[in-house]
């Protein structure tokens, strides 16, 4: 059955993938195990609408699935059984009247309670206008009682006007009016509850609550699943997964972050305690470049979610020491009496190597059909039209959602599903690549240094002058902003 899916007008790239993921979580695809290619939902747009529009139609197997998706989602404002739509109120009336009575009457019965909400996109309507519009619906035989708090049935009249410009959408969008029965909607109270400014323990790159929930949804976090973050930091990503009932585990190379925090009541543990969430089942200090997992351990995590350090706001570190990896010095032999308190030196960890290690770890440690969800940075002035995302024989990329961070770069949330087993050949190739990274440490660090690409002055980057690259802008801005 087709439902009207109305999104919040933000994080446009993230909206459909979230609904797709939740559809998997709530069992919309029963035959999923058979095919190699993960199933996808069918989508439609209202007439004359642009893909960036908040209004979409989605085909879902049942109202129960639609409700579960909408209630769990972060970006779905509401999911509605559409009773009618049109370009004018006359068209809407004809459309509602022709909608089959057997679909309508059960929700209009005497003894039930209902509420009609008038909503609009890109304009404000006064209370009087709203009242008039509601009275204009008299052709629908409502028999129930009006109740504004917790009614049995919620009806919505939603209007989007044809302002041409300036209503936050491309001009192609034309006036459209929808009337429908609400099936479910996002719990947006979650985000103020978990917002970072009320979080006790924060780091410089703590993930904001909305994004952490989106990542948890992409990872299909739910009760009984084990979810791992190899760059856990203050735990901000795992908080989202724990909220949805998953058991969490995290590692970080910086022991001060995971062990000490800022005192006994301000550390990773307290970030979970604050919201009454179950504590992570494991936190440890480990190097993603040399993970301490026992050999033979595999397919234990249901999902891996992380924001790898890509060297723009915070750089990654790995064991080894700068000079040691350059080959300038021999390994420092730690004297016996200093071993206990010795702080091993670390070296910068290039993004390429970091992502290689992450994919290798995920290929081995994720259960089949398990998900790897992580952010990948992309320079926006790249001339090549198509961005190349990391690939791995065990994984299939199912969604990539861009969030623009500055005129120079954006981050893309990649969701990959494990579709192939971790074979001996793949393990051997990964081992050789690991050695290659070690031998050419300096070269890998210089290639793809994002920090300088993001922060160097424009002149140094563009000798031929002119800011043509900022004109070539694939993404439209709405009210001067990327959403």
């Amino acid at each position: 059955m087709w439902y009207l899916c109305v999104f919040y007008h933000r994080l446009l790239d993230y909206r459909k993938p979230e609904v797709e993921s939740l559809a998997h979580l709530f069992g919309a695809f029963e035959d999923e195990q058979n095919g190699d290619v993960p199933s996808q939902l069918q989508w439609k747009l209202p007439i004359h609408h642009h893909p960036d529009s908040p209004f979409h139609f989605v085909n879902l197997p049942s109202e129960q699935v639609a409700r579960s998706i909408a209630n769990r989602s972060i970006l779905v404002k509401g999911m509605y059984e559409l009773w009618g739509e049109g370009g004018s109120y006359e068209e809407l009336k004809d459309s509602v009247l022709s909608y089959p009575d057997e679909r309508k009457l059960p929700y209009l019965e005497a003894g039930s309670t209902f509420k009609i909400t008038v909503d609009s996109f890109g304009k404000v309507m006064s209370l009087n206008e709203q009242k008039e519009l509601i009275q204009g619906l008299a052709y629908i035989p409502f028999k129930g009682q009006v109740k504004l708090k917790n009614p049995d049935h919620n009806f919505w009249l939603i209007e989007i006007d044809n302002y041409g410009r300036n209503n936050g959408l491309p001009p192609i969008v034309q006036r459209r009016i929808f009337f429908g029965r609400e099936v479910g909607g996002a719990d947006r109270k979650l985000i103020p509850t978990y917002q970072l400014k009320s979080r006790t323990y924060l780091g410089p790159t703590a993930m904001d609550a909305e994004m952490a929930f989106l990542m948890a949804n992409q990872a299909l976090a739910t009760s009984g699943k084990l979810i791992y973050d190899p760059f856990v930091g203050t735990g901000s990503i795992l908080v989202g997964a724990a909220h949805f009932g998953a058991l969490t585990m995290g590692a970080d190379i910086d022991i001060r972050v995971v062990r000490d925090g800022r005192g006994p009541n301000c550390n990773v543990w307290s970030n979970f305690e604050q919201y009454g969430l179950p504590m992570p089942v494991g936190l440890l200090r480990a190097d993603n470049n040399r993970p301490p997992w026992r050999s033979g351990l595999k397919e234990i995590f249901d999902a891996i979610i992380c924001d790898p350090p890509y060297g723009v706001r915070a750089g990654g570190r790995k064991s080894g020491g700068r000079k040691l990896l350059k080959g300038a010095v021999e390994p420092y032999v730690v004297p016996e009496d200093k071993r206990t308190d010795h702080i091993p030196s670390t070296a910068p960890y290039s993004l390429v190597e970091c992502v290689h290690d992450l994919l290798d770890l995920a290929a081995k440690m994720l259960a089949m059909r398990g998900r790897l969800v992580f952010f990948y940075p992309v320079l926006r002035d790249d001339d090549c039209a198509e961005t190349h995302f990391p690939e791995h024989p065990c994984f299939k990329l199912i969604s990539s959602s861009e969030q623009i961070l500055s005129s120079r770069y954006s981050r893309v949330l990649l969701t990959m599903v494990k579709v192939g087993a971790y074979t001996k050949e793949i393990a051997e190739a990964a081992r050789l690549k690991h050695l290659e990274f070690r031998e050419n440490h300096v070269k890998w660090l210089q290639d793809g240094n994002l920090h300088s690409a993001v922060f160097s002055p424009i002149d140094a980057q563009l000798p031929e002058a002119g800011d043509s690259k900022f004109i070539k802008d694939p993404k439209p801005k709405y009210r001067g902003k990327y959403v």
Partner: protein
Amino acid sequence: MRLLTHNMLSSNIKGVEKGFPLRIEAEKVVEKPVEMNADFLRKMFEKVEWKAFLEASRSMGYAQLPEEVDSGMLESDEFLSRFHHALLELHLEEGALVCPETGRRFPVNKGIPNMLLHEDEV
């Protein structure tokens, strides 16, 4: 550190062939109640190296686990609750994990095992 984590870790010092299981030196063990999830326990049962797990639970002062196990025992509530207790509720708060081959101590402070290697071990 819970025994689930312990069961996953090994000493990955360069040249070490058999870094698992790490011997537990327990200085302070605490118990923290956790809600039981039978599905999760059944899934983890498949992944756990039982011998190492049994040994570890004993070094944490818990001796209620059977020597030999088979998946049929997962039907028993009593076994599940013991398995749950040992896997998730016992915490090594202070102590160390010792590499079985080299004797290298990986300290555990405030419940966090420090598995980072020294320069001459990578």
